[in-house]
């Protein structure tokens, strides 16, 4: 398959769909499914029947506003989400009215305005197809320009060209650390080995984070395309997607996507009529948070116990079975096709000086609009929470937002005006992490928050290194006593010391960052800890 074949395929698809000019798009991603999207979809299909040949009911991916699900969008075929009539909290009983509205006035009682800031203030790159295309349709992806970036890279660019575009784009790893993607790719590319691997880390485990799930459920081909471009750039012929088994829908859609891509010659041997070969395989995580750590993840793929090992050597030098390995997160790979398509310079024009592009955030906790958003790096936290997120429901006051999950920290109200990027969050004692944001209102106890995350780290510690294994357990027991107003000042001092030791001495990122929620809540809400002391 070359660029012309791809264009033909897209044209054929458009022809086949020529008669259809209105679409009823039903979000069939996991969160809408859990609020009943499947019966809605079935009802809509049954209701439409053969009545309106120019209209089609289509299952699509995430539209973002999960708290209003099931979401149904009625739109012209080429329209995006904002150009559609969006319905919220749809039930199967609404099917008749919605189908009737396809060529009539909208159903006002179900309307969810798409000009509200939640939609209007977003800028979509990673999620550009989410909620619009059918994730199970290969042709649907091709019709919106999918795989063109891969074919272009293979036919018109050398691996060095690809590396340059990615480096120029300034893209940094979206999994948490923010390591420059171009640098990582170049390092693996320079390794002299003949066997190299690409791994997509889809073991998203932070509580309150669901960006990767939504991407995989909404636009799986985009991730595969990004991986294929990466494999071409670094010289790998084998790739793995490591997905947690708790994401069955994502796994299913990914499997379908891999199968279809392979059947169409976009994976397998001689991709795009070149000498480039790539096999992509899925590996399922069995529920251990630590397997999101790259060395533990690789051990797990190798069939070993999912435990981290000391770095260096880094995976770029010695990864899977000792071979140079490139590991990136789902969202990182999802950014690749647009970068190759539009150029690194274009990508670098978005965002802040040191953090380029957009970032997908999962808004959770006590916030009006729970769901998924994509905004340019540098958007202020206040915009994200108060404007896009719609603020705190029930007239309560905002207290703090936890970013970076159990490895991150909280940001209190006085820092709401910070422009969110990798470096600004670090100066506040937290981190970008994979993009989960848990919003807390004035009723939340920060000691409880710290205890919750410590319990998470304690139960997810793999048990390999001593500080993380036993330190988290000791810190949790002190936090537990604090929460019950039983702890002494001496214990509080011990907690702070344990935080330092565990942070400085743990083997992997899980342990090194486990004290962060404690340190950060102590930094901003010390008074709450003091108030909980039992001996004052």
């Amino acid at each position, binding site marked *: 398959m070359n660029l012309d074949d791809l264009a033909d395929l897209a044209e054929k698809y458009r022809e086949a769909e020529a008669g259809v000019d209105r679409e009823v798009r039903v979000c069939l991603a996991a969160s809408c499914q859990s609020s009943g999207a499947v019966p809605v979809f079935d009802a809509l299909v049954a209701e439409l029947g053969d009545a309106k040949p120019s209209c089609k009911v289509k299952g699509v991916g995430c539209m973002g506003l999960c708290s209003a699900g099931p979401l149904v969008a009625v739109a012209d075929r080429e329209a995006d989400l904002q150009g559609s009539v969006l319905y919220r909290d749809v039930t199967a009983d609404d099917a008749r009215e919605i189908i009737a509205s396809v060529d009539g006035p909208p159903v006002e009682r179900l309307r969810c305005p798409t000009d509200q800031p939640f939609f209007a203030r977003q800028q979509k790159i990673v999620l550009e197809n989410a909620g619009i295309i059918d994730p199970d349709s290969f042709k649907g992806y091709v019709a919106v320009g999918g795989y063109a970036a891969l074919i272009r890279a293979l036919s018109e660019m050398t691996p060095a060209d690809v590396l340059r575009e990615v480096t120029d784009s300034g893209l940094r790893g979206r999994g948490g650390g923010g390591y420059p993607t171009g640098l990582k790719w170049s390092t693996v590319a320079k390794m002299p080995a003949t066997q190299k691997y690409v791994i997509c880390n889809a073991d998203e485990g932070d509580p309150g984070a669901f960006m990767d799930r939504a991407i995989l459920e909404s636009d799986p081909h985009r991730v595969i395309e990004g991986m294929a471009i990466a494999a071409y750039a670094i010289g790998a012929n084998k790739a793995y997607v490591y997905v947690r088994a708790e994401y069955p829908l994502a796994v299913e859609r990914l499997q379908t996507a891999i199968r279809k891509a392979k059947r169409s010659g976009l994976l397998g041997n001689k991709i795009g009529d070149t000498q480039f070969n790539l096999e992509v395989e899925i590996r399922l995580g069995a529920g251990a948070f630590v397997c999101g750590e790259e060395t533990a993840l690789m051990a797990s793929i190798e069939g070993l116990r999912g435990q981290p090992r000391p770095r260096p050597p880094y995976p770029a030098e010695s990864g899977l079975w000792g071979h140079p390995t490139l590991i990136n997160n789902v969202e990182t790979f999802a950014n690749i096709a647009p970068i190759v398509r539009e150029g690194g310079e274009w990508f670098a024009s978005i965002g802040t000086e040191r953090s380029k592009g957009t970032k997908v955030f999962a808004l959770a906790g006590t916030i009006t609009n729970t769901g998924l958003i994509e905004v340019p790096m540098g958007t202020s936290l206040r915009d994200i929470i108060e404007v896009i997120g719609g603020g705190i429901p029930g007239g309560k006051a905002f207290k703090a937002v936890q970013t970076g999950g159990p490895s991150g920290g909280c940001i209190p109200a006085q820092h709401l005006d910070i422009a969110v990027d990798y470096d600004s969050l670090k100066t506040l004692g937290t981190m970008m992490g994979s993009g989960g944001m848990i919003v807390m209102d004035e009723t939340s106890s920060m000691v409880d928050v710290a205890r919750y995350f410590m319990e998470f780290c304690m139960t*997810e510690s*793999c*048990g390999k*290194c*001593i500080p993380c294994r*036993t330190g988290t357990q*000791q810190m949790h027991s002190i936090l537990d006593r604090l929460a019950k107003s039983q702890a002494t000042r001496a214990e509080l001092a011990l907690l702070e010391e344990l935080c330092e*030791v565990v942070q*400085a*001495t743990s083997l992997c990122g899980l342990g090194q960052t486990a004290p962060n929620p404690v340190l950060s809540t102590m930094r901003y809400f010390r008074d709450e800890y003091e108030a909980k002391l039992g001996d004052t």
Partner: protein
Amino acid sequence: MPLPAKQPNVRVVTLNIDGRDLSAREDETIIEVCRENQIPIPSLCYLEGLSVWGACRLCLVELAGQGRLLAACSTRVAEGMQIQTNTERLQRYRRTIVELLFAERNHVCSVCVSNGHCELQHMAQKCGVDHVRVPYRQASYPVDSSHEMFRLDHDRCILCTRCVRVCDEIEGAHTWDVMGRGSDCRVITDMAQPWGESDTCTSCGKCVQVCPTGALVKQGTSVGEMVKDQHFLPILARRRHPQ
């Protein structure tokens, strides 16, 4: 049989450890160079002859220009390194780590068969641990006495995995492994069967000898009677994995 020659083409580098200028082969780790030069570095999971595990974190050292501490066992030397092995900060961390170990399981030295010959006990003394500030975890684990020659007491296990590694890498039986998560991890034989029912155990006893504490001991030993001999290990390791 003469030992195989070390591989050629390895450069020699110079580095500074605790103010001493030393030379080392580029393929050596910091801990190897320290041991060579009688610079004491505490460790529990590291054992010459076994693969590097990097889990006890006691051998962490400070490297000038590097924010993070480095495990001496898993870090190779490099030209010009400036290393500190025994700063006040490192001493404090080591003390805390040893305390955490004592609090995790039920290490009662006075009634232990390894009393006086235990690496954990020595470590506590060396690191100045004269009491444990954190509360004891008080978890109870069973003792496996099903093997006719040996005994396993989880209460004295520090999960260093020396037994797992020696069984896999030297004996080649891979009877031992680890199950569970966090502090509930346990070393197991075969698929968590009683040791005496293991199909793979060859009863060679290497695991007992390399165990740093009284977790793996010979049957019939009483308080302080279990003395371990690890001299076989480097010799066997060189035979198994000629360099």
